[in-house]
């Protein structure tokens, strides 16, 4: 731990779960709600489209939590998290295609499109799900590591980092739009027919996917909570509020930021991995800079710096989007921009401010969750 003495008692992570959740009733109730929803899906067997929607929302919530970890707790706003989501999604799609090809023997559209006789060498082994999982998470971590190392080492911070991460995802989108990358180009990849040997559209698979997404969400929430409640979490907050001071105290902020950044990328890839089989398609549009900004919007609307806020924001915005982009597609962009402006101007801590108002009518001013670096001048470091 780079010279600093860790004063906290060394307790195993499992035994920290209880106290961590106990300190955050909102998060604890969310975890219970997520688990209850998973149970409800299994027991009540609602309509498949509803199950599918719940599963997609859970994937988005995981993605939002991954961004909140670096933005809310470390002060690093990534406008390129769509990249890691897409890495998970693309590897998952490759696995599904390779698997379906091995099981059914029908060549995927992609092969005919590219004029391939067989899948190229870099698809080797993707028929195996564990390998695909390791590849997706490892690739996301590796990309995050290289990019993070280059940025954090030279102390690229704040909006600078945001802009460069946006450029990264933009370039990745241009790259994937090319057909010669061999990953479907413009059309992306679709036509997944088999998952672990079961036909893709069957109610059992749909429910299974949604439940998997919900359980993963619960796991990610608990794990992230334990992390931010741990000594590392205190260091994250310290780094967010005054990186220079933490560094002067002898902590390696580069190592801290790099570690959390890679973890966040891995969680985002996990979300992509769970998302793609549920929607049945992946194309380069998940890499558009607008989608990556939208992730930040979910977190901002829900309330950054609170893991529960990220979940609430992702679910609320996306549920609204599912509903409105069908009901009145013309109006949705206006509503979204209005929401963002309202939250940014009126509720600096997102929807959680509303909850704080209702819970504590005595103090009409919302409790300030605003970190000091936002309050102090400049902010341009």
């Amino acid at each position: 731990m780079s010279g600093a003495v860790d004063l906290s008692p060394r307790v195993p992570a499992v035994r920290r779960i209880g106290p961590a959740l106990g300190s955050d009733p909102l998060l604890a109730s969310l975890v219970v709600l997520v688990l209850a929803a998973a149970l409800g899906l299994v027991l009540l067997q609602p309509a498949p489209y509803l199950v599918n929607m719940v599963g997609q929302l859970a994937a988005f919530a995981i993605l939002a939590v991954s961004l909140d970890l670096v933005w809310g707790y470390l002060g690093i706003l990534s406008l390129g998290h769509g990249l890691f989501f897409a890495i998970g999604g693309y590897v998952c799609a490759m696995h599904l295609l390779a698997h379906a090809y091995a099981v059914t023997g029908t060549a995927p559209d992609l092969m005919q499109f590219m004029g391939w006789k067989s899948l190229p060498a870099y698809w080797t082994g993707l028929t195996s799900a564990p390998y695909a999982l390791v590849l997706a998470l490892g690739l996301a971590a590796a990309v995050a590591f290289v990019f993070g190392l280059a940025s954090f080492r030279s102390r690229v911070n704040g909006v600078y980092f945001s802009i460069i991460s946006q450029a990264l995802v933009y370039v990745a989108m241009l790259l994937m739009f090319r057909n010669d990358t061999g990953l479907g180009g413009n059309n992306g990849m679709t036509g997944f027919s088999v998952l672990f040997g079961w036909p893709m559209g069957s109610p059992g698979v749909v429910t299974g996917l949604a439940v998997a997404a919900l359980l993963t969400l619960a796991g990610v929430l608990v794990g992230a909570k334990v992390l931010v409640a741990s000594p590392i979490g205190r260091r994250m907050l310290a780094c967010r509020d005054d990186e220079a001071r933490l560094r002067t105290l002898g902590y390696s902020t580069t190592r801290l930021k790099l570690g959390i950044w890679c973890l966040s990328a891995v969680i985002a890839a996990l979300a992509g991995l769970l998302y793609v089989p549920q929607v049945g398609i992946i194309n380069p549009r998940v890499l558009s800079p607008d989608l990556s900004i939208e992730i930040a919007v979910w977190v901002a609307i829900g309330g950054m710096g609170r893991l529960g806020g990220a979940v609430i924001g992702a679910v609320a915005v996306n549920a609204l989007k599912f509903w409105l982009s069908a009901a009145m597609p013309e109006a949705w962009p206006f509503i979204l921009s209005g929401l963002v402006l309202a939250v940014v101007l009126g509720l600096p801590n997102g929807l959680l401010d509303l909850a704080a108002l209702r819970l504590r009518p005595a103090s009409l001013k919302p409790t300030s969750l605003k970190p000091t670096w936002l309050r102090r001048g400049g902010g341009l470091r």
Partner: protein
Amino acid sequence: MVEGVRRLGLVALLAWGASLMMPPALAADAPLERGPFAAALCGDGAAQTKAVEAFLHRAAEAEAAEIAWAGAALRALLDRRLACLGETALLLDRTGAAEGVEAATGTARPAAGGRSPVLGLRQRALVETASGAAALLTGPSVEARRAGLSILERRIGAVPEAFLLRAASAETDPGLRASLAAVAQSAALSSPDPARRLAAIRAVSEAPSGAAFSRLSALKTDAAYGSDPAFRSALDAALARVERAVSIGNGLAVLYNGLSFASILFMAAAGLAIIFGLMGVINLAQGEFIMIGAYATYGVQEVLRRLAPAWLDAYLLAAIPVAFLASAGVGIAIEALILRHLYRRPLMSLLATWAVSLFLINGVRVAVGSQNLQFAMPSYVSGGVPLYADFVVTWNRLFAIAFAVATLALTLVILKRTPLGLDIRAVTQNRDMAACLGIRTRRVDRLAFGFGSGLAGLAGVALCPIYSVNPGMGANFIVDSFMVVVLGGVGTVAGTLVAALGIGSANVLIEPLYGAVAAKVIVLAGIILFLQRRPEGLFAVRRRR
């Protein structure tokens, strides 16, 4: 100028060729006799061929009136408006008319009982060529003459060189003269006389272009390339020369496009850099301010079209103040309504400007529609001057470059020579100290934001003649302009300029080698690597914290 030299060379070549080729017997031919010519047109295939071939040979020195007369008769024959009564030919107004005029004399006569001669395949081609030649020489309009030339081109072998020389010297339209020169050149290249061919190859290589290159390379398949060493070496030398010139010309064109792209980037990024340096606000709506500038330009064009069509050509110039004020007005409104509350929270202001850009894009989409706008191209931004080989200095890009230079001058004057500029620089360096000295920093912020937005509006005017204008156009520039700001350093005009030039030309230099996407990837990787050395960008403003 180059064009003039090329033409002189061609005329000389033709004159020389004509003096070689002109058979003396033909030059002394008797003038065209109308009666026998008309009779021959009514005769059988052999008679037709003989008469028309004789006409073609004489066309180089016959009188214009005579050629016009023969052209009318040939046209009539092609259109089946020629009625033959025995040996006399009548010209009709339309096929099957009851009355016509005698071709030879012009007297009116009833056409009853006349037959219209049928042309064989060979004869039809020959008659078409001859009538095209007549049209080229005596056609009343440029279009008619151009149509004549395009007919001639198909059977260029049947046309004597002297005729092309005459047509070239008589032609008044420069465009058609250039096409004539090209036709004459290709005729000379395939001429059976080796000396003529060599001269033609030399002439072609003196005016290098991509077209000249392909024309010369086509000769490599010629039989003479294998058998005639003189021909072979001349052709190889000419090819090497043209190839070098063409690649230099293409290099110049690439640099020129890079310069114009950099100009647009600079205009988009200059406002960003000022705003970012002053307030730390990342304005994701900057691309939409460009869009507003372009739409304001469109509005000015439509207003002029309605109110003063005579002044329509001036719309681009008239739009300059309008676009600036429109974008600046929207910018100031956004600053006053939204960003003012977010100055201590740069990441939140980033999201707020994203919401604004979403709102503006969709607002315009609903109000105007999402199709590309149609712009009339004023004369001063259409066309260009061919400078060297295939390199053409196009006016629309030159307009953008000149515009960027003017914007640069304006920005520098405002920042360095006006009280507002002094205030902006002071607040950029140290906001608190500037406030202590009595500068109203909030007012400076607002004006600077308006100024920066207005600069984006100007970029919108400049790219109207180059890029397509639609509600989503801003997204094409925003990522690149942010890279310019990051690379150049915050709040410096010089840094923005250097970075815009660097990124603009790097993009276009890499593009032809590895493709547009690879260019972006390489440029981004280069910027990230560069920031390892200088995280503050090329030119960092010294500031106190």
